[in-house]
């Protein structure tokens, strides 16, 4: 297996690892509001998230700044919880959030998730080699994994939309409810490590 493909597969496996499901959960709640027909917006959202986490992962890996990983692990479920609250708020009051605001949030929340990825990346990366190729291929693996997760999620949503009495509102409440509960549990669990 080539050096490039090794790190690409590590990025892909890391994001799709269901045991570390916080990143997956964030992607699901982030895209919960959008139907498959708005795939371009979803693509921009996922890309904004990727840009955010790529930037912070690169900065952390290059040692530009160091962060307290316990705080990052706590803040990751906070980003999920806030996204769920925004989803539920929009659904309840039938408001339409500005797309730009959502993209900016995805970017900012991506910065936090990237610092979470950096812990794993630091453990598998040796500082005796150039960081460029491992970082690029690891990030590419993360991006591919994210797009696969969102695609599966959107296809599931599309299939459910064919069921009579299924409504977009129910879906958003269902996914955001799960996200809210799980992120709250994660926050409580990780609070003790602060």
């Amino acid at each position, binding site marked *: 297996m*080539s050096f490039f493909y090794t790190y690409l597969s590590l990025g892909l*496996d890391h994001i799709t*690892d269901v045991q570390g499901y916080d990143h997956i959960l964030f992607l699901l709640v982030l895209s919960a509001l959008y139907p498959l027909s708005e795939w371009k917006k979803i693509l921009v959202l996922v890309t904004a998230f990727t840009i955010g986490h790529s930037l912070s992962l690169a900065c952390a890996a290059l040692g530009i700044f160091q962060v307290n990983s316990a705080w990052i692990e706590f803040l990751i479920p906070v980003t999920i919880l806030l996204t769920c609250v925004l989803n539920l708020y929009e659904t309840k009051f039938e408001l339409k959030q500005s797309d730009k605001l959502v993209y900016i949030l995805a970017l900012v929340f991506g910065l936090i998730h990237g610092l979470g990825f950096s812990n794993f990346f630091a453990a598998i990366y040796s500082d005796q080699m150039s960081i460029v190729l491992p970082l690029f291929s690891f990030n590419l693996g993360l991006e591919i994994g994210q797009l696969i997760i969102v695609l599966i999620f959107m296809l599931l949503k599309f299939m459910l939309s064919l069921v009579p009495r299924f409504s977009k509102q129910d879906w958003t409440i269902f996914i955001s409810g799960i996200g809210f509960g799980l992120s709250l549990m994660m926050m409580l669990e990780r609070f003790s490590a602060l």
Partner: protein
Amino acid sequence: MKKYSFLFALVVLVSSFTHHILKISNTTITKSEGKLNIEIKLFADDLTETMKSTGHSKLNYNKASLTAKDKEELQKYIAKNFSIQLNGTAQSIQFIDATTDLTDPNNSVIVVKYTSVNNISVNKGSKLKIKNTLLFEAMAEQRNMVTLLNLVGGEIEVMNFACKDKDVFQELVY
């Protein structure tokens, strides 16, 4: 429908709740002044679990400073599960030190350093064979990555060992 959605969310909420990273180790091999330098990175919790499964129930590597006993048992364990052959000849490696990297306190990493006892010459056509079964006893999903840096010119090579594929040895011809 909304009530049922929340009920289901609650069921999921109280179901299994785990947060863990992939089971992986990273070994980097470089060359300086004619000798091989080997750096092995293992997640401390995975190492502790593996040592327990091999009968060392009292050892715990999830701490800032390792004891002499921790290091001694670690060396014995690595000697059983990691080896290097060059052109069919086993290469002796000498333990330098083992330290704990606490950059991420939730997932601390044990960094173990070795150097080859003898000077080693790796050239074009050299055949390098590595055994890496670290942590395989306790982790069915364990993957071990070995990166060989600049052993011949500026070449970077990677070997991947997977427990599920029963990868014990990997061979590389430069």
